[in-house]
């Protein structure tokens, strides 16, 4: 094949269509965000616990998150990391900052005012935030795919 054979516009269309076609697959199943949020929440509840139960919550929550990802990846046939270029990456970074802020607030309220429930409340807020963040990430990623980028 030589350069003369190339139809650049058609080639760009093929590449864009291939990426846009991914968005038509069921890459964002309904169960993923709530399970991911629950895993994050359980993991963060470890800040309100002590000893073995704290370690069990941290590891158990992490196991839920990793298992959810493994099941999703196996069922869809693709694997993606959160920190992609563009909007999905910003959402992932924002979620990390949010989770750090919420967990710090829970720990501070307990240390400063003795509110033992604060880390659990923070874990609940983190769970909801993680589930919403996961949905937002999916939407941004799928929008990127539909745009052929």
């Amino acid at each position: 094949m030589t350069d003369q054979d190339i139809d650049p516009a058609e080639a760009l269309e093929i590449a864009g269509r291939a990426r846009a076609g991914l968005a038509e697959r069921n890459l964002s199943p309904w169960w993923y965000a709530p399970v991911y949020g629950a895993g994050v929440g359980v993991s963060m509840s470890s800040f309100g616990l002590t000893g073995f139960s704290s370690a069990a919550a941290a590891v158990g929550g992490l196991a839920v998150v990793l298992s959810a990802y493994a099941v999703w990846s196996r069922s869809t046939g693709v694997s993606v990391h959160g920190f992609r270029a563009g909007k999905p990456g910003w959402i992932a970074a924002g979620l990390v900052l949010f989770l750090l802020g919420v967990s710090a607030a829970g720990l501070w309220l307990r240390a400063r005012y003795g509110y033992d429930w604060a880390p659990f409340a923070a874990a609940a807020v983190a769970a909801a935030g993680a589930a919403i963040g996961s949905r937002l990430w999916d939407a941004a990623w799928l929008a990127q795919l539909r745009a052929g980028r």
Partner: protein
Amino acid sequence: MAPRLDLVIHAPARLQICAIHSAVDEAEFAFIRDEVAVSDSVLSKHLKQLEEVGYVKARKATVASRQRTWLSLTRKGRTAFTGHLAALERLVSSAKLAAE
């Protein structure tokens, strides 16, 4: 990224394979086959060409006693694909300017 046409990537099926891989980190063989709508043997042939130039790498994973092949673009492949798209875009822009 310097625009550079890459004739290994340019064939429609390989262009689709690279485009799909540029949107994900890894994709399973069967997923790519279904998306590109080719047979296993045709896809294998295209993947072999991409692997030979170091653009794609394969990883075998066994789940529930079933072996699956996961494929991803290498850094070299990603760079080549980005450069190829940039070259195509430049050609399209040049053609538009020439037509005006």
